[in-house]
């Protein structure tokens, strides 16, 4: 592990040096996607310049080294999240794709009429709509764990929802809209007392926390590469072998098959039975480089630094009269959602953008939770390893300017 050196880290991300509207870019939309270090960009260029070939198919040299690099990524992530077996990690397009896989492949086998699926009120649409759809199809019932005024899951209410009809619990590790870190270990343990498996939507978790799936004992953990300094269009589903083996494939085609005739097809073994078609090989290789990058700095160091940024930003923004922080959970990841007086987040976002600062405005694809706060949306600043306190100062100045313009 290297020493945490913010100057060096900023050098690693070429996009950080660019300007927007003639101002140095401040990128605070990391919960939407993170920027990529040069090593990730180089890995993709190298792949296409030197190694490009389809994987798992050819006996020729390039196909073999591409396959090796691809499978290496799987093994490295297995080690990183401490999965028991490499075949418990399925490559997907991202978190949404991973959740859809479970909703379809697990849902088809295990969820029936009258059954229940539990999610929380904090969920991103991608951990809500697939279950809503499944429940509609199967005449099952979607139950929602409520949250308190700080944006924290009410654990006792969750316990009350668990019963013999519950077939799955699916909750976010970290809320993308509010930054709340959910007590996932407690949720998993409680659900297991009822023999109910648990899926953790780790889209906002992996880049900030060390994940140990065996210690957590989660049944599924889904994540995206692009929120983890890796390319877009790739992610993973970790699933316990026992579940994955009982689940049926939901996408069909090449690679996922064993024997094919016009009468009958038998399916390949794990993990391939869930990986139909040619995968996003360059992104997978980029994801391997991103993992190396994060390991070099140490996710604990990243988390500590981001937490420092979060408390600095929270403190500085709170000093501005009229600024209201939305989501005040005791444990928060580096997401700061706020409103400035009665100014519409969209108005605020337009001005902040023109000042060279990328923030997100709106409901952040988590409409229900913002509706429950009775607000049209928020301005959201989310921090990553390359952000600085100086950048936060610029956001503070921008917020003051917004106030001056609209009030």
């Amino acid at each position, binding site marked *: 592990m290297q020493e945490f050196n913010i100057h060096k880290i900023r050098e690693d991300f070429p996009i950080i040096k660019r300007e927007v509207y003639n101002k140095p870019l401040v990128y605070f939309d990391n919960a939407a996607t993170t920027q990529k270090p040069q090593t990730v960009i180089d890995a993709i260029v190298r792949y296409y310049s030197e190694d490009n070939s389809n994987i798992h198919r050819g006996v020729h040299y390039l196909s073999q080294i591409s396959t090796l690099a691809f499978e290496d990524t799987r093994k490295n992530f297995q080690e990183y999240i401490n999965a028991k077996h490499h075949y418990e990690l399925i490559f997907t397009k991202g978190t949404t794709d991973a959740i859809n896989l479970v909703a379809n492949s697990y849902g088809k086998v295990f969820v029936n009429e009258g059954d229940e699926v539990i999610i929380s009120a904090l969920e991103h649409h991608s951990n809500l709509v697939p279950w809503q759809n499944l429940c509609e199809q199967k005449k099952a019932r979607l139950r929602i764990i409520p949250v308190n005024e700080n944006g924290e899951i009410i654990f006792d209410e969750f316990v009350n929802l668990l019963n013999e009809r519950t077939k799955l619990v699916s909750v976010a590790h970290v809320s993308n809209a509010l930054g709340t870190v959910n007590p996932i270990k407690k949720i998993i343990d409680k659900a297991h007392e009822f023999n109910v498996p648990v899926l953790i939507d780790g889209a906002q978790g992996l880049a900030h926390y060390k994940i140990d799936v065996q210690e957590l004992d989660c049944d599924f953990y889904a994540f995206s590469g692009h929120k983890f300094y890796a390319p877009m269009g790739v992610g993973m589903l970790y699933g316990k072998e026992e579940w994955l083996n009982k689940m049926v494939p939901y996408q069909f085609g090449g690679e996922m098959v064993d024997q094919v005739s016009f009468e009958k097809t038998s399916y390949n073994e794990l993990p391939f039975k869930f990986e139909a078609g040619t995968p996003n090989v360059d992104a997978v290789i980029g994801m391997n480089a991103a993992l190396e990058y994060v390991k070099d700095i140490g996710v604990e160091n990243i988390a500590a630094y981001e937490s420092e940024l979060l408390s600095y930003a929270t403190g500085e923004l709170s000093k501005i009269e009229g600024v209201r922080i939305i989501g005040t959970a005791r444990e928060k990841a580096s997401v700061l959602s706020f409103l400035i007086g009665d100014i*519409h987040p969209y108005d605020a976002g337009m001005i902040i953008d023109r000042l060279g600062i990328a923030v997100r405005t709106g409901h952040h694809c988590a409409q229900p939770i913002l509706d429950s706060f009775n607000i049209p949306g928020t301005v959201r600043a989310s921090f990553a390893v390359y952000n600085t306190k100086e950048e936060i100062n610029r956001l503070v100045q921008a917020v003051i300017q917004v106030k001056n*313009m609209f009030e």
Partner: protein
Amino acid sequence: MEVKSIQETEEEIINEFSYFDDWMDKYNFLIEMGKSIPSIDTQYKVENNLIKGCQSRVWLHATLEDGRINFTADSDAVITKGIANLLIRVMNQQTPDDILSAEFTFVDKIGLKEHLSPTRSNGLMAMLKQMKLYALAFKTKTEQAK
């Protein structure tokens, strides 16, 4: 008072915008425009009159009088309200035919499209489309009545 043509109002707006030195002036102008929008009657501020595709909520209503359209609108975001009013200023008191055949090139020329329309988010295009749909509906209705 004689009604200016769509093109005349467009040129007027382009001229006004040419005095602005920077984006800040443009936004301040839009914020001011937002304040003088022909306000939609509360009874029309309903779900049905909401324009889809905007990050902020925009309500739009139209009436036809003596063959000419009058729009009223509102939004919960001030800049959006300003943009809506800019469009209304160009279109009010025009005939459905004129609105349908207009291309509204001023949007490009004053840099609105470039700076303000990352499509989905501000819904400028959605507003324009909805206004043309109103014009089309009035035109069809009038023709059927003949």
